């Protein structure tokens, strides 16, 4: 027993660099030798999927890219999936960005799903700018931008991301403000993002909206799902993996779930060892 306790004490006092190394290995090995783990959909993801399915076909939808490269692994798979799902249902997509680098994330996502760029991929579309989608681009101002979109889109967007006048684009003819969209979606990594869209976009206009967020935000965003302010939620990389399964296009999120699970096991083990070591040490200190 004492031998076991000594081992636990040693594990509890292990150098932090050893823990980093083990977590690195736990993530790297499943990525190098892919392991397939089952993915089960959670109710919030199913609600999200159903919410997009319920939009009348061939509607106009607003998709906001509110993230940058730092959170790309979590949000990007969701946004690519959402674009695929919406295009499959014939919607016209209007892309805005509250984050400066969101525009490049949007361009990357569009590239991934375009026939011309990826002719061998079965889940791509023959999409054309200004017919199937328009890239409105980034505007600084966070909640002020959303407030502006809710009242008069043209005061915020004079030109699109390519520098073309909004007034000259046929696809923008019927769009005056957020009320002209059938649905709002925000792929959000923080401020400005989901919270601001709910407060200044979805709630005041009553336009149905949903969001995909980083795992860190889930605890704060989930009450909006329970109140119906958001129609479902994609929660971090697991949410993206569940959504990829629902739309039947396995992607990078599903591939990452094995690495995610193994890393969690390592972390949980070290938390357990750390706690056991703490209690053993406390007991021994009391004894002597």
């Amino acid at each position, binding site marked *: 027993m004492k031998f076991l306790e000594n081992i636990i004490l040693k594990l509890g006092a292990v150098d932090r*660099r050893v823990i*980093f190394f083990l*977590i*690195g290995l736990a*993530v*790297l090995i499943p*990525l*190098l030798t892919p392991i397939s783990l089952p993915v089960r959909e959670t*109710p919030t993801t199913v609600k999200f999927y159903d919410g997009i399915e319920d939009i009348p076909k061939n509607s106009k939808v607003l998709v906001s890219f509110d993230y940058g490269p*730092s*959170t*790309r*692994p*979590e949000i990007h798979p969701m946004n690519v999936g959402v674009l695929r799902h919406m295009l499959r249902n014939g919607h016209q997509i209007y892309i805005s960005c509250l984050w*400066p*680098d969101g525009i490049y994330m949007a361009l990357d996502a569009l590239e991934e799903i375009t026939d011309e760029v990826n002719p061998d991929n079965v889940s791509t579309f023959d999409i054309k700018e200004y017919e199937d989608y328009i890239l409105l*681009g*980034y*505007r*600084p*101002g966070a*909640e*002020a931008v959303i*407030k502006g979109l809710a009242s008069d889109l043209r*005061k*915020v967007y*004079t*030109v699109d991301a390519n520098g073309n*006048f909004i*007034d000259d684009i046929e696809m923008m003819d019927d769009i005056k403000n957020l009320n002209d969209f059938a649905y709002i979606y925000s792929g959000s990594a923080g401020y400005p993002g989901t919270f*601001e869209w*709910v*407060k*200044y976009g979805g*709630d*005041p206009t009553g336009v149905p909206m949903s969001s995909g967020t*980083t*795992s*860190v935000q*889930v*605890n704060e965003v989930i*009450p*909006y799902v*329970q*109140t*119906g*302010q958001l129609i479902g939620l994609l*929660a*971090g*990389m*697991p949410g993206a993996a569940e959504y990829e399964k629902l739309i039947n296009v396995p992607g*990078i999120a599903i*591939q*990452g779930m094995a*690495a*995610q699970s193994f*890393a*969690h096991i390592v*972390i949980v083990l070290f938390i357990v060892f750390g706690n056991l070591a703490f209690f053993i040490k406390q007991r021994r200190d009391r004894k002597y």
Partner: protein
Amino acid sequence: MSFSAILGAWIATFLTLGIFSYLYRDNPFYKIAENVFVGVSAAYVAAISFWTQIYPNLLGRLFPKDGPLAFTGLVFDFNHEFNILYLFPMLLGVMMLISVFQQFNWMARWGIAYTVAIAAGLKAFGYLNSNVLNQVSASSVDIFSGSLPFFSLGGDSVFNNIVLVVGTLSALMYFYFSKEQTGNFGRFTRLGIYFLMVSFGASFGFAVMGRISLLVGRFNDLIEYSSADYNYATLGVLVFIIVTLGFWSFQNPERKEN
């Protein structure tokens, strides 16, 4: 593979591994990556904000073609009509910039005061409507609604309603400091602490999950860049950083830290 794609992969790999090298200890690679990130981000935001917002939306409205200020020779044609109200934000913006001179630094206060007032007004409305009224309304549930099952893991149920109401009330009561938290009231507020602890635990779990997801993303890129298509960028940079760090540590033994 184009030269720019390969060069981009090498730079991305260097910056990623430079940041990761902090796990060993603070070092020049980490400092380079950190400073490049801060500098590039600031410059990028400044440039894109000017060309997408100030240029078309501010200057375009103050100096349109055929506008009253066209005589100045400045014309920014974005199909806008002249709007004199836009002079006000431009003036406040200029006043904020002028504050870099010591004798004019009071000028920045006007712009800051305006921004703070607008932000406070906007946020007050948003919080009250979306975070208070809607949440209070959603928490007011019919606990023993006949149409609900007693227990359900995924959906609405009587049990979940009881947890919702008890959890909300006990957590709120924990922050009620006008009454000493003893006796039955103390036991109730203690229950509130447990609910809060569960919430903090969930937040921690989600935070860990998020960080691992980001690590998965970086590793995916590093694996991709380790291929012959990118001239083995990951391996090349990794060897370079390890050898240089080893040499640097050997040269600076007094800076070793745990």
